[in-house]
């Protein structure tokens, strides 16, 4: 396993500076807590970002994007998250639905959806997990039955981020019974969440916020034109979708906002232990940034660094938690979600989010098994 070091080209650095300037103006005066991809949702902000060409960047120009690279997206996303920008509306469409439609969709689907994603006018969520299917994704039971001109879908999806606000769910459905090959017989459907037969109920997170949902499909009709890719080819599609989901800056910046406010509050006149922590944590951020960038460059080079991405996601997500616990033990304040003190509020918000960081998008245990398989091969 090799992570070739790479650096940003001059145009990539200019892009970074442009995004930095845009965000400084956009976010001035906003009270931002945290730096998580699901932290804030502001469709108007997403549309202004899209107007700059920074949503769905990898979409080719003929479908309304700019034909950008994975590295360009890396640059934009790192700036967005580190600044705590409200990215939740366009996040999933930008990160994984657009690349999946581009790779597997029909010409008609590309013309219909990609320009909307690039304008942040159509939003998505992920329909993978179910009450009885978490890490073992191939065991999904949401079923599609053939009907005239399409499929009738019944079943339940959970942890569906933003289903109550987003437009479509890219949903993994079993379209033929599980035989010897559990990975066969799965398909991906683009399901309109505002259509009939769909019940969306909130699943409240530890911090009391409504982010996740349970989505029940009761005999929902999905026309053939919304089947994504090959019927029965869903497993292959969904695993490549997961590769986009891993190793990006969203996997190591979730507690960056907390760390920055720790630096603001305790950086000056710091004790030896605080200086030690500041130095070690910054060194880790720098190194994760470069590993994550290396994976993006490998993707642009045409390789499929699946194990590398898993390894970086494990490193990044365990690190995000370490950051929060380290600054907590050094600061010694009583966190209060409603405190006037900024650091106290950041700490409260981060702490209640920590358990999920090493679960979403592939647990620590799954990731280490993926990385180990490659290393031991």
């Amino acid at each position, binding site marked *: 396993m090799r992570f070739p070091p790479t650096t940003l080209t001059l145009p990539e650095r200019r892009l970074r500076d442009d995004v930095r300037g845009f965000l400084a103006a956009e976010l001035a005066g906003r009270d931002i807590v945290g730096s998580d991809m699901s932290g804030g949702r502001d469709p108007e902000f997403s549309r202004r970002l899209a107007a700059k060409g920074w949503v769905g960047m990898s979409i080719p120009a003929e479908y309304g994007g700019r034909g950008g690279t994975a590295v360009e997206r890396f640059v934009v996303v790192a700036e967005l998250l580190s600044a705590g920008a409200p990215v939740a509306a366009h996040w999933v469409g930008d990160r994984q639905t657009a690349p999946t439609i581009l790779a597997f969709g029909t010409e008609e689907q590309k013309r219909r959806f990609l320009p909307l994603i690039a304008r942040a006018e159509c939003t998505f969520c992920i329909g993978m997990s179910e009450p009885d299917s978490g890490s073992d994704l191939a065991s999904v039971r949401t079923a599609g039955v053939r009907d005239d001109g399409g499929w009738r879908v019944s079943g339940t999806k959970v942890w569906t981020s933003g289903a109550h606000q987003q437009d479509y769910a890219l949903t993994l459905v079993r379209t033929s019974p599980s035989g010897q090959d559990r990975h066969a017989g799965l398909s991906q459907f683009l399901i309109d969440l505002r259509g009939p037969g769909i019940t969306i109920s909130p699943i409240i997170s530890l911090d009391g916020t409504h982010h996740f949902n349970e989505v029940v499909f009761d005999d929902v009709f999905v026309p053939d034109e919304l089947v994504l890719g090959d019927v029965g080819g869903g497993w292959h599609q969904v695993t490549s979708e997961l590769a986009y989901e891993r190793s990006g800056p969203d996997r190591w910046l979730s507690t960056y906002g907390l760390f920055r406010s720790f630096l603001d509050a305790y950086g000056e006149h710091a004790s030896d232990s605080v*200086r030690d922590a*500041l130095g*070690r944590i910054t060194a880790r951020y720098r190194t994760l940034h470069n590993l994550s960038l290396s994976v993006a460059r490998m993707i642009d080079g045409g390789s499929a660094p699946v194990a590398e991405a898993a390894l970086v996601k494990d490193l990044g997500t365990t690190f995000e938690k370490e950051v929060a616990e380290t600054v907590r033990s050094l600061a010694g304040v009583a966190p209060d979600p409603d405190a006037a003190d900024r650091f106290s509020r950041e700490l409260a918000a981060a702490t209640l989010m920590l358990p999920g960081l090493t679960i979403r998008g592939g647990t620590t245990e799954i990731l*280490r098994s993926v990385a*180990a398989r490659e290393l031991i091969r």
Partner: protein
Amino acid sequence: MNTLTEIDRLLVDTALRLCADHGSREALEAAEAAGWSEQLWNALVESGLTRVGISEAEGGSGGTAAQAAELVRISGYAAAPVPLAESLLVGGPILAAAGISPPDGPLAVAPETGRLTVARRDGCWTVSGRIAAVPWARMAELMVALASGETGPVVVAVPLADAGIVPGRNYAGEPRDTVTVSGVVVAAPTPAADAGVDATTWRLRGALARSLQIAGALERVLELTVRHAKEREQFGRPIARFQAVGHMIALLGEAVAQARMAAETAAAGARPDDAAIAKIIAGEAATKGAALAHQVHGAMGTTRECDLQWFTRRLWSWRDEFGSETEWARALGAELGRGGAGRLWEVVTATPEEQR
């Protein structure tokens, strides 16, 4: 940097072959008893590999600093018992910048700065003082040091024939000697600024060298550990098939990936932050990686009979040399405390060639 040129490949292959030729268990044991492998050193000198990265005009073999860094990483991968890191990345380039041709023989580098004082007496320059834990002093002709001159720091090449040397060693038996000089006559010293160094960058050069060695050694440790896990059978199957063992190997892979990325990033650019970061990351990775590798190796790994020890004893030594993680982390942390959040994000995202 992504793709090795043909010349890079040739250098790497030559270095690996020479290290392998002199890297048998018997050869490494003999080298540890003697303090080093003179045969390997001579073979490297003959191939011109001890002066890579220094131009021919300055008495080197030509080549780039990146090639020198890659050779140092390989010397760690091979646990090569020779002062290649000090010659290629610290003493050699500093001497060259000071206008002094590096000698054929091994070069010692004073790890601490300001411990020696240079004075002018009867028309000649003399140096006095005492420095502990000088790598390879007993086999070197010259020790390069950053000394206190009458008007500021100076680079000085101290002939060690006239020095008092008390042998010392690190965990791996590499010489770390105490050098005492009293009125030893030296050639005219070079002002530090003219040689492009100060007390911090001096230490950072050493920190980068050790980081690259650690990255190389960790890579070898991962190879040895994977091989062991596939060969060793317990409960009727190779232990690599146990999930608990696989996960330790994944964590070891993470340590390797971080150390190498941090060291190569620092080697590719001229940012002082990156060399400090490399030593912090490599030091942490050395600790974690060595512990994981030993846990997978079980009781066998705790003996001198197992090859793992050539590497882990070096990892435990190198993490503390030229500044531990704590030393560099405090320095970086102090700088960030002054610079605040803007400086933080700049350090995280800088491309290596961007200067502050």
